[in-house]
């Protein structure tokens, strides 16, 4: 039975597909972030604040607002950092992989060539000895 | 045997230098020019001089030392003189030690010529009681720099990329020495906290000891065929 060999196009597209997959799957994690950051406040003590005391309420509001601003300011940096992380890894991997594949092709060719040379050389020397 | 070979190589370098004077003149001239450029670049006055003066001195030493290093090994490149030297009876170790001593001597002589001029140009006051500390810092710093620089200089002298590669690999390694030198020079000029100088001296001495042990080993390992 003939073994399954993906065509050249498939092989060439694999890294691209991988890249797309990586970007696509990390995108929700990143883009989902701003909403969660705005709604989720682990450290703002909302329950403990007495709603009858305006000053405490105001303070808790300030705190909430402050952490929201911190997150809003930091968000582009966070996204940029993760994009850079992925970009560096994926670009490097793709380039290294391509280099490796070329090298492998070169190696296969060379091996075949050397075998061919050896055959002709051996034949030639045998011819010499018989002659 | 080793001592004699070291002495012979060192004597050869010094004799060539005494006859041609090309290394010392180029180093000294270069050092003075760097200081002049810095003086313009920082538009130095008295308060700024105290701040950046030590840094300028050490950067100058670093650059002039690199220049001396290039010249020291340029000589050995013609007619594959380096391979001949490495075949000397005492081997690469003698070559390494002789070259380190040569570089230390060259930098020291350059400093003796240039430093008074530098201090005058920059305008930093060096009090008399600060001179021993300054001299000690210079000695430790120059030794540390030479140990590393000669190792890489000797290794990379035969490559085509040496002018690029030598600074790339030497400067990151000698950073501790440069920081220590700058700090000690500042202390000698009456800057910084009192107990601080001891720590920096210890750091520089530690650097010198570590590289005194490591560099000869690496040099012999790398250069032996």
């Amino acid at each position: 039975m003939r073994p399954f060999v993906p065509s050249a196009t498939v092989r060439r597209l694999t890294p691209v597909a991988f890249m797309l997959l990586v970007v696509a799957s990390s995108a929700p994690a990143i883009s989902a972030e701003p909403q969660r950051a705005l709604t989720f406040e682990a450290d703002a003590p909302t329950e403990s604040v007495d709603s009858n005391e305006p000053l405490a309420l105001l303070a808790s509001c300030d705190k909430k607002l402050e952490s929201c601003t911190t997150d809003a300011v930091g968000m582009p940096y966070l996204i940029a950092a993760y994009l850079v992380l992925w970009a560096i890894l994926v670009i490097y991997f793709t380039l290294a992989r391509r280099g490796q594949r070329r090298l492998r092709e070169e190696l296969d060719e060379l091996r075949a060539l050397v075998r061919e040379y050896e055959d002709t050389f051996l034949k030639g020397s045998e011819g010499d000895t018989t002659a | 045997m080793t001592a004699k070979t070291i002495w012979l190589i060192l004597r050869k370098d010094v004799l060539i230098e005494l006859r041609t004077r090309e290394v010392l003149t180029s180093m000294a001239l270069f050092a003075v020019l760097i200081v002049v450029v810095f003086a313009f670049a920082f538009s130095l006055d008295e308060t700024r001089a105290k701040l950046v003066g030590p840094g300028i001195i050490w950067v100058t030493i670093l650059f002039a030392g690199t220049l001396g290093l290039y010249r020291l090994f340029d000589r050995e490149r013609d007619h594959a003189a380096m391979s001949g030297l490495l075949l000397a009876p005492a081997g690469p170790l003698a070559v390494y030690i002789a070259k380190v001593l040569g570089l230390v001597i060259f930098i020291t002589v350059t400093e003796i010529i240039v430093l008074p001029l530098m201090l005058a140009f920059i305008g930093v006051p060096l009090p008399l009681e600060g001179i021993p500390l300054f001299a000690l810092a210079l000695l430790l710093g120059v030794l540390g720099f030479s140990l590393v620089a000669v190792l890489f200089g000797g290794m990379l002298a035969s490559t085509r990329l040496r002018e690029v590669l030598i600074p790339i690999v030497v400067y990151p390694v000698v950073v501790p020495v440069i920081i220590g030198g700058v700090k000690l020079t500042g202390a000698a000029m009456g800057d910084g906290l009192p107990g601080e100088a001891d720590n920096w001296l210890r750091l520089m001495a530690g650097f010198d000891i570590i590289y005194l042990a490591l560099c000869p080993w690496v040099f012999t390992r790398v250069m032996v065929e």
Partner: protein
Amino acid sequence: MKAPQSSLRPVFMPLLLGAALMGVIYFVFAVTPREQQMGEVYKIFYFHVASAMSCLSLFFICAIASIGYLVLRNRKGWGRIATLSDQVAHGLAEIGVLYGAIVLTTGPIWAKPAWGTYWNWEPRLTLLLLTFFLFVGYLVLRAYGQRDEKVKNMASGIAVVGIPAALLTHFAIQLWKGGNHPQVVTGEGGGLADPAMRQGFAMAVGTVALLAIYLVWMRVKTHQMRDEVEMLFLDMSDLEEARR
């Protein structure tokens, strides 16, 4: 002609590792809590520090492999191990520089919102920068002469000398100024208080290290193939010589 599995199999590992990395990122964003002072930006930390740890470990192991190469290269019967340790050292340096690039780009991106500046001369950042430069020099030298025996020796020398320098630089800069890098891992800065944070951090460190191991292995294989190509070229020229 081509072996069928060779074109399929190599994609498996990177996919697995990529999935693991994405899993960790998901964990970091979905499970670990928000840090109180720095806010969400804090989440750069997980991969920044994990990459930095891997990066320095790679450089350190590279130095050890280089020592191994320098010691063994002239011993009889150890030639193959020496060659292998040289190839491994080369791969380690390459991936170390890659990770260094990650650390040195995510570092400033984190530093800007967290400290207000893109860069400050803080001990560990400077240490990494200088070691990074040293190993960039190492790779430049390596690229200059692939199979040259002398180049291999020189590169090993650079790696061996670099490591004590890195430690001394760290020490020197710590002496120079206190530094405001958060001492998160040792716990002095109060970070990683939450168990989920510690869990996420451990996961990040593990995944990043595994990825490093895989990439190094890939590079080692590439170097081995390159060496074989060189050798086959030599064989061919020998054969051609003999045929004349």
